[in-house]
């Protein structure tokens, strides 16, 4: 896939810890979805998580902003421990942006209102300032001219870029992507990936569940492979793709790269 040329080593990773997950377990009823997850993410790191469906990768990143509750272990985001304390949860959520597979834009609001809603109500930003910020980010994702339309009038790729802009308007320190391109037509995947690459170049800490292996090669510092609720293998992209160690990783890679 032809994308803008980037050199991962040029993007800085600091020693500061952005996310620390220790010994985390989660069950749906009696089904053990996440098992003994240990994961430390440095600030500025770009991590791609892949794995077969049902392996718990989406659940893992949804635990980071408490869309899912974990039952055991600890998650510390930006120094704030994730507990049942609503204040901490709200604080973490306003610091962590998230993009969904199905965009989840608010269909009753215009693109601009989608982008200004959270800054105005959560950050108490004055409306005018919030609109300026929103236009700045909409320009960045290259759709400022759609600002007054409704989400239903945009294409899938445009909607996903608006969703990214909407998250960015909260000036998050970490971005989570939950299969951002899986619901898109093939010809729209690139425009979304380009936006994400641009974001990575600016040093955003990113966790991305995706099967776009070209994207993983180009931008990730680390690729994590999950299966059956466990982290099976993680490595730098080059070694991960060229020299996978675990049998399940090999099988998975042969299946998704084989065609």
């Amino acid at each position, binding site marked *: 896939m032809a994308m803008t040329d980037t050199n991962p080593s040029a993007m800085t990773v600091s020693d500061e810890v952005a996310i620390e997950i220790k010994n985390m377990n989660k069950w749906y009823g009696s089904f053990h979805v996440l098992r003994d997850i240990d994961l430390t993410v440095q600030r500025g790191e770009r991590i791609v998580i892949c794995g077969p469906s049902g392996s718990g990768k989406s659940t893992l990143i949804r635990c980071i*902003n*408490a*869309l899912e509750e974990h039952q055991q272990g600890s998650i510390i985001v930006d120094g704030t421990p994730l507990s049942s304390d*609503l204040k901490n949860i*709200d*604080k973490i*959520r*306003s610091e*962590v*942006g*998230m993009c*969904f597979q*199905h965009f*989840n*834009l*608010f*269909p*009753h609001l215009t693109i601009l209102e989608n982008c200004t*809603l*959270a800054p105005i*109500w*959560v950050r108490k930003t004055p409306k005018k300032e919030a609109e300026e910020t929103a236009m700045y980010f909409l320009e960045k994702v290259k759709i400022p001219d759609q600002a007054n339309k*409704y*989400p*239903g*009038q945009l294409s899938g790729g445009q909607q996903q870029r608006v969703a990214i802009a*909407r*998250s960015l308007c*909260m000036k998050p320190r970490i971005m989570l992507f939950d299969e951002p391109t899986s619901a898109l037509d093939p010809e729209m995947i690139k425009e979304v990936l380009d936006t994400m690459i641009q974001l990575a170049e600016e040093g955003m800490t990113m966790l991305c569940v995706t099967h776009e292996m070209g994207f993983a090669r180009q931008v990730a510092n680390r690729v994590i492979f999950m299966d059956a609720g466990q982290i099976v293998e993680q490595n730098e992209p080059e070694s991960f793709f060229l020299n996978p160690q675990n049998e399940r990783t090999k099988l998975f890679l042969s299946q998704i790269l084989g065609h």
Partner: protein
Amino acid sequence: MSDTHAQSVAFVRDTEIPPSPPPARETGAIKWVRENLFSGPMNSILTILGLLIAFWLLSGLIPWVVNGTWTGNDIRECREILQGSGGGCFAVVAERWPQLLFGFQYPDYLRWRPSLAFVLLFLAVPPMLFIMFLPRWTLALSAVYPFLAYWLIWGGTILTPIFIALAVLFGYFTFVKIEKRGFVTGLLAGIVAAAAIIWVGGLVAGEFSRFGRLEAVESRAMGGFMLNLILGIVCVSLSIPFGILLALGRQSRLPIVKGFCVVFIEFVRGVPLITLLFVANVVLAYFLPPNANFDLILRVIIMITMFSSAYIAEVIRGGLAALPKGQYEAGDSLGLDYAQSMRLIILPQAMKISIPGIVNVAVGLFKDTTLVSVISMFDLVGMIRGPILSSTDWAGVYWELWAAACILFFTVCYGISQYSQWLERQLRTDHH
């Protein structure tokens, strides 16, 4: 197209096909009639049968309306004027019109007050219904209206509605201030604050009962279509917010809140409205202190509101359930708290989905207000059944009176239905 295209498998388009209009169909009225009314023997028979039925209905209805008389002071004069021409005795509607509208106990020299309140309704309602086209300050008209209308219709000192308005305002602001510590705490604090103001207001209004005084009219004197309108408008406006609270409560994670809402909704939906009205009329009095003067209309309003808010809650629950889970998650992931994401994201969408259902309940409720005639209140139906039909002047004039009642109700209900369809078109945000 060249021949090579037809002979080879490979195909490259070298000419653009220009868009063309759809094939012109035969049009015209005769064709339409032939296709839709006389396309076969069966269809032709049905068409002729339909025409006969329509003719039979109209041949009765038209003379009844056209030959009808609007003058005459009782049914005997009517009969003399009509001389068996088959016309209707509409004189009863003309003569008893004020009673049909206001009931027979509302002092006739004070009828201008409810009339004025009715006219003002047309100033107060548009801001709520058409807020997208009007400046925001016009909502103040809607907010002031209920208290003004109360003062006009019931009379008494203006201090009473002012203190009720203050209680609502004060309760609301207390709720907003305390809500951060928990929704239920805020709600209780708000209610306590409002009750305190009402209590103080009662003392003050009792002391200065001459201030801004209109001649008082008792609730017992309310009647006619006015009573239906009062009950309908008040109960619908109250039951929408209560319905929203019940629907959200039913989804709550707090077991007490959820349990209360489920039991309330299921109980109220499980009993007929008429039994609730009898409870309001008779049984409620047993639970109140002997001297408590608990207004009958207020009791009826409470019961009808309870009844319809349970139905509206279920309609809104349907709207909430229809929203994709992603909308809740998107709100959460942006850091909006519960109240914000409900008010800004979930409810606007859920309410939009619920409009047809809510209108259904509202129209049904408005017509159900005629049930109060069973607990001896003289609403439009109560007036016709009671004082008018049992009077010696007009005994036996059924068709004309009930037709008038139907037209009054139909006008209002059809208006509501048209408005809701317009609103649905306005709120469509996909492809336009």
